[in-house]
Every structure is written in C-alpha cells, then in structure tokens.
C-alpha cells in the first residue's frame, strides 16, 4: 500500500513536471513543420518561471472567485493526471474517480475557467466563456460515449480495469475502438483548444476561444492556468494512450516493469505530440459555427462505435 502511495505521488509529480515539456515538444515540432526556427524545448518552463516572478495585475472589480479559479483549475488537472494510469496501473487514487468522474473533473475545471472569464465583465471574457461552453457541451457527451464504448468492452468504468482488459488480456481486435479513437482525437483537439477548433497562438477577438477567457490573467495566475493547460494536454494524451494503445503500462505491483513502462510512455508521447503538430499544420481553423458540426461528428462517431460494439462484438 505504502509503495502504492509513493508510486501514486511519483506518477502525479512526474505528470505535473513533464507536462510543459510535452507542450514544448509539440510547439517545436510545429515550428519545424512550418519551417520556422523552433524555440528551445524548455521554453514553457521559462515562460512559467517568468510569469511567477511578475506582479499580478488584476482589474478593480475582480472578485475573489477570479483569484481562486487558477488554483482550482490547476488542482483539478493535477487530480486528473493522478488518476489516469501513465506508467503504472491501478494506483490508490484510481478508485476515487472512474471515467465518468474524470469527465466531471474536466467539467469542473472548465466551469471555473468560464466563470472566472465572466468575472471581470470585459466583452471578450464573456464571449470566450460562451464559446468555450458551446464547444464543451458537445465535446463532453462525446467523450462520455467514447468511454462508454471502452467500458462496454471492459464491463467496467474503472480506468485500471479497462487498461487491464485491453492490454493484459489476450489480444483481440475491437472495430468499435477504432471509431472511438477517431472521435477521441477530435474531442481532445477541441478540448485542448487546438486547430481546427481553436488556435492557441492567436489573439484575434473574432476567432479566439480559450485565449479570450484568460485575457485578464497575468503573472502567477496566468502561469498556473498555462501550466494547467499543459497538464490537460498531457492528461488527454496519456488517456488516449491508456485507452487505445495501452501496451507497456506496468500491471499492478510490478515494480520491475516500471522503467520500461516509463520509456515506452515517453516514446508514445513523443510520437503523439509529433502527430498532433503534424495534423495541426495540415489543417486550417474552421469558422466558429462549424465547431458544433465538427464536434457533432465526433459525437456521432462515438455513438456509432458503441452501436458497432453491440452489432459485432456481443
């Protein structure tokens, strides 16, 4: 048990620390692919450090909620990162929340971000909040459907059990999973404010979603949010890995397998980041009211995956 706790803490810390690195990696890949000279891979860390040092500038009418939100968001993401099996499986936190609760955590963070954005009352904040909620109310059920497909296969909504079933039982091909995978990809693109739904590097009022919400933040608050964003990307990536290519995650209590699992995980993340950058580069951002269509498609794909599971696999 104690080892379990330690392992848990280790994995959580690892996730929290590695998250900006993944972000940096993605940016670097994008720069290469777009033929720009890339910033160093550690750039996110520098940004965070700089932000933490600055004095926070807050609007006069900011309420306590505004200052509380960044911590809350960060905490939610940390918890999520702790729950998803990254290198080791079935850690003590995992019974705290199954996949449905995981969606709940993301929703909690999102709601706080949106509320904080509305707190100042500048036109952009509200606009961003509205758009964010618009995106999410489609993305959330779609994500649930993806999880449902997996949990129908695994007969459980517990991530460890799902991973167990998919990775460590005898190998079986699940066509439904492929649908779910595509849907999941689209969802995570949307949820992490990437192209084609949102553009992380824009500040154009008409198009921005996520950036519009955090427009009022500065210094440590901004830093926490940026960090949380990185953490979110990381969590989604590991989540995707856990669901769709779980091989290599160490089974419960198997300490010996951990180093290998770590290496495998890093490799997978590098690949995933590169793929993300590649897809972002070749696709263009869609108009805002196309976003619902985009996510609607994701939703339908997920549902379709579930139906296929019932058609072919039961």
């Amino acid at each position, binding site marked *: 048990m104690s080892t379990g706790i330690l392992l848990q803490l280790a994995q959580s810390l690892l996730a929290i620390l590695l998250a900006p690195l993944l972000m940096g990696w993605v940016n670097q890949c994008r720069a290469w692919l777009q033929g720009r000279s890339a910033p160093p891979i550690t750039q996110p860390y520098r940004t965070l450090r700089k932000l933490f040092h600055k004095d926070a500038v807050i609007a006069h009418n900011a309420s306590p909620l505004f200052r509380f939100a960044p911590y809350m968001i960060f905490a939610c993401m940390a918890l999520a990162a702790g729950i998803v099996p990254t290198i080791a499986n079935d850690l003590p936190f995992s019974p705290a929340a199954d996949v449905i609760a995981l969606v709940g955590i993301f929703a909690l963070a999102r709601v706080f971000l949106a509320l904080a954005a509305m*707190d100042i009352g*500048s036109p952009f904040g509200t606009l961003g909040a509205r758009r964010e909620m618009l995106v999410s109310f489609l993305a959330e059920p779609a994500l649930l459907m993806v999880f449902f497909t997996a949990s129908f296969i695994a007969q459980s909504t517990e991530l460890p059990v799902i991973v167990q079933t998919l990775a460590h039982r005898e190998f079986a091909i699940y066509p439904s999973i492929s649908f779910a995978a595509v849907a999941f990809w689209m969802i995570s693109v949307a949820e992490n404010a990437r192209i084609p739904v949102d553009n992380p590097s824009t500040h154009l009022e008409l198009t921005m979603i996520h950036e519009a919400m955090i427009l009022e933040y500065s210094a440590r608050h901004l830093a926490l949010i940026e960090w949380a964003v990185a953490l979110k990307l990381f969590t989604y990536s590991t989540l995707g890995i856990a669901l769709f290519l779980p091989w290599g995650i160490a089974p419960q209590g198997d300490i010996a397998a951990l180093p290998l699992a770590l290496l495998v995980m890093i490799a997978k993340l590098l690949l995933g980041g590169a793929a993300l950058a590649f897809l972002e580069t070749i696709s263009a951002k869609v108009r805002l009211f196309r976003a*619902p269509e985009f996510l609607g498609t994701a939703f339908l794909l997920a549902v379709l995956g579930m139906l296929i599971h019932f058609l072919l696999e039961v």
Partner: protein
Amino acid sequence: MTESFPLLPDGPVQWAWGVVLFWLALGFSALLLQGSQRLLSRLVFPLGALGALGIAGVGAAGMVLPASAVILPIGLPDLPFHLRLDALSAFFMVLLGGASFGITVYASGYFRSMAAGPLALLALWYHLFLAGMVTVLLADDAYAFMVAWEVMALSSYFLVTTDHKVPEIRFAGFLYLLIAHVGAVALLLAFGVLQGGHGDYTFDTMRLAEMTPFWASVAYLLVLFGFGAKAGLVPMHVWLPEAHPAAPSPVSALMSGVMLKTAIYGLLRVTFDLINIQIGWWGTLALALGLITALYGVIFAAVQSDMKRLLAWSSIENIGVIIAAFGLTLIFYTDGKGALAALTLTALLYHALNHAFFKGLLFVGTGSVLHATGVRQMGHLGGLMRFMPWTAWLTLVGALAIAGLPPLNGFVSEWLLLQAFLLTPGLSHPYLNMVIPVAAAIVALAAALAAYVMVKFFGVIFLGQPRDPALHEAHEASWPERLGMLWLAAGCVLLGLFPAHVIGWLSPVVRLLTNQTLVNDGSWLTLAPVSAERASYAPLIFFAVVTGVVLLTYLWVRRVYHGRVRRSDPWDCGYPEQDARMQDSAEGFGQPIRQIFEVFMKVERETPDPFDRNPRYRGASLDKLWFILYEPIERVTGWLSQQAGRLQHGRIQWYLIYSFATLIFLLVFTTR
C-alpha cells in the same frame, strides 16, 4: 409487497398527522394575526419551519420503523381517511421536511417587507400547501389522496396569484390550476379503474385487485398523464415556466423543489405498489418521454433571459431525468433484473432528493436578488457578487451542484444513473439493450447543457460589471435568508460527500418497491454500487485531493515567489469607451444554443434599424409546442362552442321543435 409488514396500531403516522394539524392551526391562526406583521414573519414562519423539521424527523423514523397506519374519523361515510406511513412515504417526507425547513426559515426573512394583510393570507395558504403535500404522502385511500392532492394544487394556486394585480400572473395561475385539474380528473379515472368496485377505494383493496393487462395499461397511462401534468412532463409542461416564476421566491422553491416530487411519489406509489402487474413497454414509454423532457427543458432553459423562468425550465429538465430513471427502473423490473432496478431506483430517489435541495437553494437565491434589486431580467443584473457575497457564494454551490459537477450531490445521482444505463446490456430484450445506451448519450448531453445554463445563470447575474447603476445599492440578504440558504447548501455538499451512507439509508425504500437492495461494495468513503471492479467513486478522496492541491499550490506560490497584486482597469483592447452594457447579455449568451436548436422554438425578434435614435433589441424564444398543441385545442373547442351556440337560436318555435323532435325520436326509439 407491503403486506409483509405488520401494521402497528400506532406509530410515526400519528406524529406526521399531528404536524399536519399543527400546520393547519398555524395557518388559520395567521388569519387572526392579521394585525401584526412582526408576529407573522417572526413567529408564524419559524414555527412552520419547526414543523418541517418535525416532518423530516418523522420521515427519518419511518424509514427504519415498520409501516404504520391510522384511520381518521373524517372522509366519506364508507370511506374515512386512511393514512399510512411506509418507507416510500417516509423518504419523501424527509425530502419535503428537509427542503422546506430551509425554505421556510428563508421565508421568515423574505416576507418581512410584506404588508400584514396579504401576508396573513399568504401564511394561511403556505401552511395549507405544506399540510396538503404531507397528506398526499400519507394518504392510503383514493379519496384522501385526491383531496390532499387538490388542496395542494389549490393552495399553491393562491400562492402563485399572490400578486394578482399583474395580468400575466393571473394567466399563469389560471393555466396552472386548469392543467392541474385536468390531471386530477385523469387520476380520478385511474382510481376508477383500480378500485375494487362497490365504492371501495382503499389502497389495500387496490393492491389486491386482479387486473387484465389492458386495464392495467389504461390505468398506467392515465396515471402517467395525471402525474405528468403535475410534474411538468412534456407536453403537459406549459404551465410550469409560467407559474413557478410568478410565485414569490420561497413558494417557487417549494413548488419546484418539493411539489413536483409529490408527482414522482404518486407515480412510484401507483405503478409499483397499487397496480399489481407491470408491463415492459410502460418503461420504454416513460424513458422516451423523460429523455425528451430533459432535453427540451434544458434547451429552453439555455435561451431564457428571466432568471426564475430559467430555473423553472431547468426543473423541467430534472423532472425529465427523474422520469427517465423511472422508465429505466420499470424496464429492469419487468425484465426481472431486480438488482439493476434497485440501482436505477436509487439513482431516481437520490436525484429527487438532490433536486429538492439545489433547486430550492437556487430559487431562494433569486429571491434575495429580487429583493435587493427588484429585477428578474438577467439583462439588467450583473456584478452582484461584490454587493451580496453570501448569496453569491451559496448560490454558486447550488449552481455547481445542479450542473452535475463533482464532488457535489448533483454529480452522484447522475453518476448512478449513467452506471445504470451502462448496465442495460444485461437486458434480455434484443434491441432495447442496444438502443438504451444511446439514451445515455442524451442524458449526458442534457447534463453538459445544464452546465452551460448554470454558467450563464451565475455568470450573468453575479459576475461581471453591474449592467444598471441602480445595482450599486443592492443589499445583502437578511440573516434568516442566509441561514435558510446555508442549510440548503449544506445539504447539497453533504449529500455529495457521503453517498455511501445515503445509499445505505435509502435501502428500505428500494426494497419496498423492488424487493431488492443495492449493495454498496465499497468502504464507507467509496461508492461502488455493483462491484468495486465495475465502478467506484470516492467524493471524499476527490475533495481532499483537490483542496490539498489547492492549498499546496497556494502556499508554494506564496513561499517560493510572492503574493504582490496591482489593481488596474481591465484591458480594453484599445477601445476606450467601454461600459457595462457591452457585456454579453443573457440573450447573447443563449444565442448559440438558440441557433442550434431553433427547430424547437418560435423565435420573435425586434432588431432596431440603423438610424434609430435610441435603439432597442428584443428577442424571445417561445415554446413551439404551445402553438402546435394548445392553440389548436383552444381553436377546436371555440369552434365547437360556436356550433353549440347555434342551438340557442332565440326563437321559441325552434325550441318547441327540439322538444317535439326529442319526443318523436324517443317514441320511435322505445316502441321499436
């Protein structure tokens, strides 16, 4: 199923009836106190609140004690009032008492600004309302049930029309009472089917009566209609968004939080207890209706611009979820999956309890806002968090809870319900088990939209800058109001943090209806309904971790770096003349939803022309069903009465001809 309990000569039921009498006495004594406003608000309502607490206590006792019954000396000659308190009634009494305690405490503060004369009447109806609801839960024969049911409707009607000077409110009250009455007649017919004949209307005989599937189905459909009309099931929902906002806020809270649940109670009571056969398609029907209601309600909630209307629509959504759970329970139950039925029923009851608390909380929250500002249109509110922090933070708890966010109570019931949906592959029915998981998608969609709605609700009212200079004078709620809200908010949090205990506590009810209990295969802090392997959720760990991380991060940032803060104007994006009216209005916030779901709505918009000196924008998204369903009914009846009117022609010869024709016809008819 209930025969297994011995009927004790006396028990909690007498206590419950005692509280009812106490409330009645209180109500009528209020009429005598017309003179003194102080006594009314500072004495009568707190006493009423005590009564509510008592009811909750009696309910809690009734959950564990065996069922007890009593026969009152009043009623019809052959049919005195039978009262009975079993676990099901007891649960709903806990719900009623718990929620209405907070609401009534709140009311004692809320009504302090009201004139004594109207307040006395209001107090009378208010306590009649409470008494009626409790009697509905206690009634053990059709007559007592119907009397209590209608007393409940009537008193709430008078509460709704408290401010009867306003034509809209009068119309709201009228529509409400009309639909309630039609529903009640449907219930009468249902009891007519269920009765044993020879005018024996006690529930005991109904339990024993053997019925053909056909008549059972007729009864079920009537009951679904009758109780659905009360609960606001689409398409009988039209009265709800009119009536609930019209009432004074504590009353709205009671109606939305508690009264709707009596309909759920009736549905459970009749379907599982009184009708002795259940048929599969009943569940499917209820499930479909419930899902439609849920989606419909939340969509309309998203496009409202009146805060109380928004909440009313969201009540419709929650009722939809509950009815869907009811349908799923029926499906499992008729399929012989007792354990799954138990799980779904647990989710249902849990959600009903939760809704009572958070909807009550939100409604009283709007009440305080209304007191402070006198505005219901969200377009004129904003930034209230700075002027009324108590109200704001407590309302935030309710908003997060109703949005189904962990670790609050709304999430638990939703989680349980989704688990139930995930278990449908266990069904023996070929395509149901394939289609129903898709239904889960709708529940998820509704939940996500609910989050949207709540961000809109809270953000527009409490955050941002005041859209109206007058708001700067907004004052914080009085102490009783805060206490009431505190109680309800505490309910939301505790119900969210200790689900394992609540589920264990619910088991008598579940056993009563499904002969099964839900085993919690987890420790006291984790909730694992079916098996820990299958699903688990530990809100306490969850809560602990989140708070822990928040604190750690905070301390870390403070220690390693600093906590310096500079205040300045918000960034104006290079556009100096910004004012509060440039924030997103309520309509604006709902606009994307309106665009996506425009099919359900009849949108009315007035956009100003560019040269307008003082341009005004008005947009309203009306319920299409009203125009599709209700206006035709109105037209048809109007036409029919036109035709009937032609008979009354005014000419005596014609009248003579009627008599003559009738005579001849009858002569021919009888002598043949």
